[in-house]
């Protein structure tokens, strides 16, 4: 299980990259992408997916 970022809505701010406990998020062409092999949906780290909680655009960091 992993999250993904809806590229058309990503503002490229990078807030999610700071918060990801798995270093699963990186910049690609001005927007950010989640590496599904590294994403754990924050299970074992936090109660909620950090990327979703910090993202300024609703429905942009969502379950893949």
């Amino acid at each position: 299980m992993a999250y993904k970022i809806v590229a058309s809505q990503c503002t490229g701010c990078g807030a999610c990259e700071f918060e990801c406990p798995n270093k699963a998020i990186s910049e690609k062409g001005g927007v950010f992408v989640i590496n599904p092999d590294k994403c754990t949906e924050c299970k074992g780290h936090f109660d909620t997916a950090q990327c979703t909680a910090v993202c300024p655009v609703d429905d942009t960091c969502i379950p893949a």
Partner: protein
Amino acid sequence: MNHQVVSLDSVARSEKPAGGCSTKGNNSCGSSTAPADMPAEVWEKVKDHPCYSEEAHHYFARMHVAVAPACNIQCNYCNRKYDCSNESRPGVVSEKLTPEEAVRKITAVASKVPQLSVLGIAGPGDALANPHKTFKTFEMVSKALPHLKLCLSTNGLALPDHVETIKDYNVDHVTITISAVDPEVGQHIYPWIFYEHKRWTGIEGARILLERQLKGLEMLVEAGILVKVNSVLIPGVNDHHMAEINRVVKSKGAFLHNVMPLISDPAHGTHFGLTGQRGPTPMELKAVQDQLEGGAKLMRHCRQCRADAVGLLGEDLGADFTLDKIEEEPSYDPKLHEMYMDVVDRERSDRHAAEDAAKVTAAYAEAKPLLVAVATKGGGRINQHFGHAKEFQLFEVDGRTVTFKGVRKTDNYCQGGFGEEEALDPIVEALRDVAAVMVARIGDCPKEKLASEGILVVDDYAHEYIEASALAWWSKVNGASDTDGLMASA
């Protein structure tokens, strides 16, 4: 980009000899004389900072570099789609920069704009939600361009965690945006915050944010760092709360309080814009500011600039310094800024001497104060053509003092070489409460129209100092004759 971006002429019209006591390298008077209401050590910190001193904003430029795109809270007046080159408002930028790109850009600007004295990081997100990029930029800038003052602005949520670092990097000016000091009010401005790995909404989020802001403010003051508090004035939400904000931030030691009008437009896509929340009119803003007089010192010269603004406060040269337009390895010659500092020293003491000389005797001090609007390009002089002015600076003059009261933005009357009759209406509206408008030049047509609306046009003081001219004009309309001829000798 081969033109001189900011002409020294905008400050000194002619290289006339230094007046009074100010000479090169002599800091015993003129520019270093602190105003009566300010300790000398504070004046030393603010005298070259255009945002912290109204006096300094006539001479000095700032630039913001957009190295901090991420944010840790959501505000109802902001949205995060910040890519726009035509809008001028906080949170808007055209290109994000890495710290290395930022230093290249700052060096390019410093080599062309001798007025540059401050480097600030103000987003487009929050400077302290991007601490590595923010402090990396400060570290590199303080090595490359040690004459620049460092400045940052923040919503305050992460502030208590970074006060030590702020101090270590010699950042001596910090702005915190506090638009409520009661979570009941704050919850209508901040829909959520991200704190300790969790999104907090409603009153709980607003309460945490407020606690962190006030704690950060106290820690900064304790550390000897000057703090400006920005408050966004939102009619119906916090307008009646502004006096309380002013009282609280003053009691915590804020140096300056900047009440800024909400900018709201559906096209910006902000919550307030989309839900029809309006911003205050210029007169409403002034009324709130006037009510706060006597509390925390007010900043009234804010232009609500972009997070990548470059130049004097009323202008934006950002478009001239995008990465594709600047050299790969710009070089900076410190002599340029040093030379400019000498010009400013001289100008400042001349200007103050002229103001003192133009003050009338106490006998006239009972007369009614008048509000005048001034067209200026900087340097503290009336040096702009009416048709080119995109803003007017407001001063209240009563024969003995001239007090800065704010800025009114307008579209300039003269577009593409022609004045448009309809373009005058919004200018008249913006200047409705002023008695006179002082300009370097103006055409007959707008002059007559303004006169018919009850606004007197004064163009007799072209290129003279603002304060001395306002005083001389006031004396003239009030029938005082004892300052006649002083303008010529000032």
